[in-house]
C-alpha cells in the first residue's frame, strides 16, 4: 500500500531484477520480522523438504496420477492454536494440502491491530482473530508449522496487499500461495485500485519466479471464486485467464486456477474443462507454452444453510462435483460454514466426507454427454468475447486491459465491494439449476448466448410464478441457504 511503484506505468511485463531488489528491500523494512527473511536460506529449506511436502511437485504428481486432492481452509490467532489445527487437518482430516489462512488485519496490513488480536486471543484462551497473523510471528516461528505436518502447506490470504505476507510465507517454507491481482482486488477491497492490486500481485509472482530461478518451483494459485456469490463460470474463467497471463509475465510456471462450484454437475464439469483449456489457449497466444495450470474446484462459496444435515450434503456433493469434473484438487468447507470458522474437528469431518465422496465418484466422467458438450461450448462463447475485448482494450497487455475493462464494465464482477468495479452484472439461477446471467450490464456477451440465459431464467420465473426481474438475482443469493421446507416441501399436504 502506498508503495513507490504506484506511479510506474502499469504493464504485464516482468519487473526487472534490479527494480525488484529495491522493492524487496523497501518492503521487508515495513515490519521487524521482515529482517528475518533470507532468500538463500529459504531456498535451501525448500530444497531440503521431501517432494511430497512441496506443493508444486504434489500438484504435478496429482495430475500424472489422476488424483483429486483435498484442501481445507483454516487459521487461528496464535501459533499454538494454529499448530493444533494444522496437525488435526493433516491427520484427522487427511488433508492432502494443509492451509494457513491469515487473519483479516494481516490481510489489510494492520499488523499493530493483529498484535492486539494475538494478545487478546492468548488472554481469552480462544481465537479472537479469523486467521493466523503470519507477519507478526515472522518466518522463523511460522516454520514450526511446516515442520509439524507431513503434507505441503499453502498460504490463504484474501487481500490485495500480499507483499510482506508472501515474503514471510515463502521464507517460512510454504510451497503454495493463493491470491491474484484481479480476483482479490475486486472481491476483498473497497478503495484499492485495480492497478495497485495488480502491482502488488506482480510483486508476489515475481518473488515466486525468483525462487524458481533458484531452483524452487513454488505453486502459485489464482482464487477464481472472486466474491463467492453466484459468479458465473465465464466471468471466473475470464479473470482466471487474465491473472494467469499476469503471473506468466512475471515468470511463474506452476499456477493453479480455482473455480467456485455452481452446484450444477454438468455446468461445473464444463467450467473446469473450459478453464484449463482457455488458460492454455491464451497462454499459447501470448507465447507461453510451458505453464502448468491445474484446476481446483471449491465447495459452494455462497451462503450456506444453517442445518448441519443439509450442509453435509453440500460438503459431500462438493467432493462429487470436483471428482466428476476432473478437478486436480478441491477446497473444502464444513457443516459449520453458515455459523463461523469451524472447529478443527468439524473442519476435519468436512475433509473426510469430501474424500469419501471423491472415492465414490472417481470413475465418473461426463465428457461424452451432449449437455456437457453444449455447456462447454456455451461457456467458451461467453468468455472468449470478453477476454478478447479486455486484451484489445489493453492493446494486448492484460494488466492495462483489466484496469480499463473493469472501469468500463466490459469486465464486471457481481456483488463486488470495490468502487473501481461497476458490479452491475446480475447472475441468477435458472429453471434447470444452471447459474446464468440475468443482466450482463456492459459486458460484451453475444446476443445468442444471452438468449440461452434468458430462456432458462424466464422459464424459472414462469415456473415459480414470479416476475422476471432482478429479484431473481437476490433470491438466488439466498437459495442454497434456505431451509429444506422451502426448497423441497412435502408437496401435497394441506397443513
Amino acid at each position: 500500500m502506498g508503495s513507490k511503484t504506484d506511479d510506474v506505468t502499469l504493464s504485464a511485463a516482468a519487473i526487472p531484477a534490479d527494480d525488484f531488489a529495491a522493492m524487496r528491500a523497501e518492503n521487508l523494512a515495513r515490519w521487524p520480522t521482515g529482517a528475518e527473511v533470507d532468500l538463500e536460506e529459504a531456498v535451501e529449506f525448500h530444497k531440503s523438504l521431501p517432494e511430497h511436502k512441496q506443493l508444486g511437485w504434489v500438484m504435478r504428481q496429482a495430475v500424472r496420477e489422476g488424483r483429486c486432492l483435498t484442501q481445507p481452509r483454516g487459521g487461528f490467532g496464535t501459533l499454538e492454536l494454529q499448530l493444533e489445527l494444522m496437525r488435526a487437518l493433516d491427520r484427522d482430516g487427511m488433508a492432502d494440502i494443509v492451509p494457513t489462512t491469515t487473519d483479516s488485519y494481516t490481510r489489510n496490513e494492520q499488523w499493530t491491530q493483529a498484535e492486539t488480536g494475538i494478545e487478546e486471543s492468548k488472554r481469552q484462551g480462544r481465537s479472537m482473530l479469523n486467521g493466523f497473523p503470519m507477519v507478526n510471528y515472522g518466518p522463523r516461528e511460522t516454520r514450526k508449522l511446516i515442520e509439524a505436518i507431513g503434507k505441503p502447506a499453502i498460504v490463504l490470504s484474501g487481500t490485495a496487499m500480499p507483499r510482506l505476507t508472501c515474503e514471510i510465507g515463502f521464507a517460512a517454507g510454504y510451497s503454495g500461495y493463493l491470491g491474484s491481482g484481479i480476483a482479490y482486488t475486486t472481491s476483498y477491497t473497497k478503495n484499492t485500485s485495480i492497478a495497485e492490486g495488480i502491482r502488488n500481485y506482480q510483486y508476489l509472482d515475481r518473488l515466486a519466479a525468483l525462487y524458481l530461478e533458484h531452483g524452487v518451483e513454488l505453486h502459485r494459485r489464482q482464487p477464481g471464486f472472486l466474491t463467492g456469490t453466484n459468479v458465473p463460470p465465464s466471468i471466473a474463467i475470464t479473470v482466471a485467464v487474465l491473472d494467469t497471463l499476469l503471473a506468466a509475465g512475471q515468470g511463474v510456471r506452476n499456477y493453479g486456477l480455482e473455480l467456485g462450484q455452481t452446484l450444477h454437475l454438468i455446468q461445473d464439469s464444463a467450467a473446469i474443462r473450459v478453464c484449463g483449456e482457455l488458460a492454455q489457449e491464451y497462454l499459447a497466444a501470448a507465447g507461453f507454452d510451458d505453464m502448468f495450470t491445474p484446476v481446483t474446484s471449491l465447495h459452494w462459496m455462497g451462503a450456506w444453510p444453517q442445518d448441519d444435515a443439509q450442509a453435509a450434503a453440500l460438503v459431500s456433493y462438493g467432493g462429487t462435483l470436483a471428482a466428476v469434473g476432473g478437478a486436480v484438487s478441491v477446497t473444502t468447507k464444513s457443516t459449520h460454514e453458515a455459523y463461523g470458522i469451524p472447529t478443527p474437528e468439524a473442519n476435519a469431518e468436512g475433509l473426510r466426507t469430501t474424500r469419501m465422496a471423491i472415492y465414490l465418484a472417481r470413475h465418473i466422467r461426463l465428457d461424452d454427454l451432449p449437455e456437457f458438450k453444449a455447456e462447454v461450448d456455451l461457456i467458451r462463447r461467453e468468455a472468449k468475447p470478453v477476454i478478447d475485448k479486455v486484451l484489445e482494450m489493453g492493446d494486448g497487455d492484460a494488466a492495462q486491459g483489466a484496469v480499463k475493462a473493469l472501469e468500463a464494465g466490459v469486465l464486471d464482477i457481481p456483488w463486488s465491494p470495490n468502487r473501481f468495479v461497476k458490479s452491475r452484472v446480475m447472475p441468477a439461477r435458472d429453471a434447470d439449476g444452471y447459474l446464468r446471467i440475468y443482466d450482463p450490464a456492459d459486458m460484451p456477451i453475444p446476443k445468442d448466448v444471452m438468449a440461452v440465459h434468458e430462456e432458462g431464467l424466464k422459464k424459472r420465473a414462469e415456473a415459480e410464478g414470479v416476475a422476471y426481474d432482478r429479484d431473481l438475482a437476490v433470491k438466488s443469493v439466498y437459495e442454497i441457504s434456505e431451509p429444506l421446507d422451502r426448497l423441497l416441501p412435502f408437496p401435497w399436504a394441506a397443513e
Partner: protein
Amino acid sequence: MNTDENPKRGDITLVTGVIGADTHIVGNRILSLGLEEAGFKVVTLGALTPADEFVKAALETAADGIMVSSLYGQGELDCRGFRDLCIEAGLEGILLYIGGNLVVGKQDWDSVEKRYKEMGFDRVFANGTRVEEVVEILDKDFAARKKPARKKAGT
C-alpha cells in the same frame, strides 16, 4: 411492506455499512436495498468501514439509526466502544443494530447477544436474518420511541 405507519419510514434515516476490515458486502447490500424499498432513507457506507466513519456519517446525515454488519468474525474487536463513540459525538440516543456472524466460530447465541448488548447495541441479529424481519422490528422500535428524531434535541 406498509410504509403508512407512525412514525413515517420516510422521515427516518439509517446508516448502513460493514465494520472494520470486513469485505462481506452482499448481505449488507441486500439489507440496504430492502430498507430503501421499505421506504427508509438509507446512507450506505459499504464494506471495510471503520467505526468512526459510521459515526461521522450519522452526524452528517442526522441519522436515526446505524445498521452495522459484521460477518468475518472480528466484529468483537471492531465494535468495542462503539456506543461510546456515538455518545462522544452527541448521538447517545441513536438506535444501534448489528447483524451477521458476530464472533469467531459457532458460539452460544445468548452469550454472543449479551456481549454485543453490553457494547451498547440495542438489537443483535444472527446470520440468516431476513430483511422483512428487520423492517418489522425497526417499525416497532421507532414506534416505541414515538418521535424518532428526538435524540437530535437530546444533548
